[in-house]
């Protein structure tokens, strides 16, 4: 039976069919749906971990325990999980272990566009890369066989276009793999110098064997067409190349992208007149070819930045321009915005109004940096808001004029350690936790604070206030406010900024998009009361715009979008907003 599946869904299907027992991940676009789809199979245990390091360590433990295991993350998540990644290369596996990492060329939803292939090289681990959904499933399954055969974790590299593109997948039965008997083996599993020194040569030997395997692997294939041009490529770039050259080129399509087979590449290069290496982001395959003394066209004409396409290849390699029509007007950009009714909006309005330095973090609320809110000063990576603020304040002494802003899921991911650092080292910074009861940006995933698991089962209640108190914040300075009440929020912030001790302000209100969150009737503007002062425009609500009429320029609410949160009502000095409800 064939079914159209997203690449991520097809990876999950591969996990199911390969008899995987254990999945632990942290959500991150574009990798999130792998674990969500895996969780739908009753035979697969699947969980959200608080962060990628915990997730990968849990998967390594499951592998030691003899079950086939998996962990998925986005590219920057692998930075967090890099510590266990490098060490598990030395320990090898019990049950097969595959680590899924999804890169985001073009940064559709990311803070950088790093190339995860460097991790495979650095950690000396094999890495595979599928080009479509059918390969997502097949490669995943094969990776488990190879992981156990070569006693190594495999990295499955995806990119946004493979993860989020749908194409046909052939569905097959699940193959059960009984849990292997656990045998204590400290020489292999306890990585301290004496043991690790004996494991390192094993890793090098294994890499050489994998390079030999690459030559005959079904993961790599040669397609001979015209020998005028030979394309060496992998992943979705293969699809773009086929679109552009068709039968007018020959292809070495790599599925095992680390280690590479010197023999295979030399033979292919010798069979064609010229070689073009097509790879998004860094010139990894290209560097390997050049190290062999093979002349190639690559990053000399193709970009290091952004996503590729057939259009880009046609322009850069063939000098062809597309035939287009367009209107003469300038088309305004449409950046993402905080949703109507978003509980974060009032917080950022208040922080900006108070003129605070805002140390930001990763989530929907990063959009608080965008005009007209424009409230955020810095955003680095998960958890950095709190730790960076501490350093900033030690240098600037700006404790009374600065806050860290972090989401509930991000705080559990890596905010807690930053807060400990503030307590331990005598800081007095103020941390604002935006507790919207869900992991929002990635599309509503559960987290340790929501009371539900990835499988939608009830989870024990973990109290955010108790965590902060347990870490050492004085309970008198752990304040909970409803961010819809702007004056109370401002009052609490002023008090805690003035306090010469660490404080936490929890802004608690569920995400406006969550099921079960009450939507009130839309508001409308009484044009007689509205004086066109634009006070309501300061909150950056996508529902409000200014409209010219015979009576002047007045505010207008898009009633189809408005969820009646009432923030504009709070802003208006003339009571011009009224409910459309009874």
């Amino acid at each position, binding site marked *: 039976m064939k079914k159209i599946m997203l690449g991520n869904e097809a990876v999950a299907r591969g996990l199911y069919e390969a008899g995987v027992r254990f999945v632990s991940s942290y959500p991150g676009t574009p990798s999130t749906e792998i674990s969500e789809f895996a969780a739908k199979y009753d035979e697969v245990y699947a969980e959200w971990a608080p962060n990628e390091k915990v997730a990968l360590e849990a998967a390594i433990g499951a592998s030691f325990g003899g079950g086939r295991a998996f962990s998925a993350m986005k590219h920057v998540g692998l930075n967090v999980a890099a510590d266990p990644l490098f060490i598990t290369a030395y320990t090898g596996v019990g049950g097969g272990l595959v680590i899924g990492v999804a890169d985001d060329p073009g940064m*559709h939803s990311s803070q950088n566009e790093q190339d995860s292939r460097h991790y495979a090289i650095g950690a000396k681990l094999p890495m595979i890369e599928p080009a479509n959904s059918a390969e997502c499933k097949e490669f995943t399954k094969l990776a488990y066989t190879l992981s156990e055969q070569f006693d190594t974790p495999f990295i499955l590299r995806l990119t946004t276009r493979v993860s989020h593109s749908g194409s046909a997948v052939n569905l097959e039965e699940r193959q059960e793999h009984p849990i292997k008997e656990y045998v204590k083996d400290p020489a292999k599993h306890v990585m301290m110098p004496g043991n690790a020194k004996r494991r390192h040569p094993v890793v090098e030997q294994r890499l050489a064997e994998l390079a030999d395997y690459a030559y005959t692997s079904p993961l790599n294939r040669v397609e001979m067409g015209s020998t005028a041009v030979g394309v060496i490529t992998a992943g979705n770039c293969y699809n773009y190349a086929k679109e552009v050259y068709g039968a007018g080129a020959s292809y070495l399509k790599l599925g095992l992208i680390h280690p590479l087979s010197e023999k295979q590449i030399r033979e292919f290069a010798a069979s064609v007149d010229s070689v073009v290496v097509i790879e998004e982001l860094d010139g990894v395959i290209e560097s390997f070819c050049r190290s062999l003394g093979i002349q190639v066209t690559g990053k000399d004409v193709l970009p290091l930045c952004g996503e590729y396409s057939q259009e880009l290849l046609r322009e850069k390699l063939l000098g062809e321009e597309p*035939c*287009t*029509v367009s209107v003469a007007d300038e088309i305004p950009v449409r950046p993402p915005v905080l949703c109507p009714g978003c509980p974060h909006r009032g917080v950022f309005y208040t922080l900006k109004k108070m003129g605070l330095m805002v140390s930001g973090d990763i989530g929907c609320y990063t959009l608080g940096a965008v005009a007209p809110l424009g409230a955020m000063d810095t955003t680095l990576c998960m958890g950095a808001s709190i730790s960076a603020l501490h350093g900033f304040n030690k240098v600037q002494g700006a404790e009374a004029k600065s806050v860290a802003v972090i989401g509930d899921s991000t705080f559990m991911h890596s905010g807690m350690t930053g807060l400990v650092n503030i307590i331990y080292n005598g800081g007095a910074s103020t941390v604002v936790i935006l507790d919207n009861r869900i992991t929002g940006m990635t*599309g509503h995933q559960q987290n340790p604070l929501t009371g539900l698991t990835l499988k939608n089962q009830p989870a024990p209640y973990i109290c955010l206030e108790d965590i902060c108190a347990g870490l050492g914040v004085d309970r008198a300075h752990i304040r909970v406010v409803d961010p819809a009440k702007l004056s109370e929020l401002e009052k609490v912030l002023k008090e805690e900024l003035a306090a010469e001790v660490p404080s936490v302000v929890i802004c608690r209100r569920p995400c406006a998009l969550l099921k079960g969150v009450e939507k009130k009737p839309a508001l409308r503007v009484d044009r007689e009361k509205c004086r066109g002062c634009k006070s309501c425009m300061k909150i950056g609500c996508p529902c409000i715009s200014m409209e010219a009429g015979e009576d002047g320029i007045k505010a207008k609410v898009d009633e189809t979008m408005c969820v009646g949160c009432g923030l504009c009502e709070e802003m208006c000095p003339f009571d011009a907003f009224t409910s459309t409800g009874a």
Partner: protein
Amino acid sequence: MITKNIMIVGVGGQGSLLASRILGAAATAGGYEVKISEVHGMSQRGGSVVTYVRYGKEVSSPVICQGEADVILSFELLEAARWLPFLRPGGTLITATQEINPMPVIIGAAEYPAGLAKKIDELGVNIIAEDAAAIAQSAGNGKAANVALIGLGAHVLGFDTAVLRGAVEECVPAKAKEINLRAFDMAASHQRAQ
């Protein structure tokens, strides 16, 4: 058959994912190879979003580039204008006449260009501009505008209308089936009457 390229463009949250799945189901029912490319994550928060659907005997790339789209289905006028360069010469643009101000317009940093449908028409583009939300509203729910848009394009999407209708039936949630099928029928017959 040459690959057919359909783009669905709009504002995050307007229902383009469902529209692409309907087209994917119709192409699968027709025995074609299909590739669909979606946008998840940050852009879904009210940003400009685009979904690609390609079908034919053999499809390589999952994306559609400038000058390649046979049909663009647009949920919003500004987005129709933004993605217009992706239409191939002789292609058809089907757009809802809805206008949603982007943040730069809301805060007064940019202007929403006036008369976009007319300007696109004057470029010699095959354009069908209709109030898809109103059609959906009269079918019972304005949220079925995505299906109404597909109905408006039924004659140029390359499928038998019955196949397309079957795909709508297959893909929409059971409780919304009746309204969506009505929106599809009304839009398709509205288009035939033009």
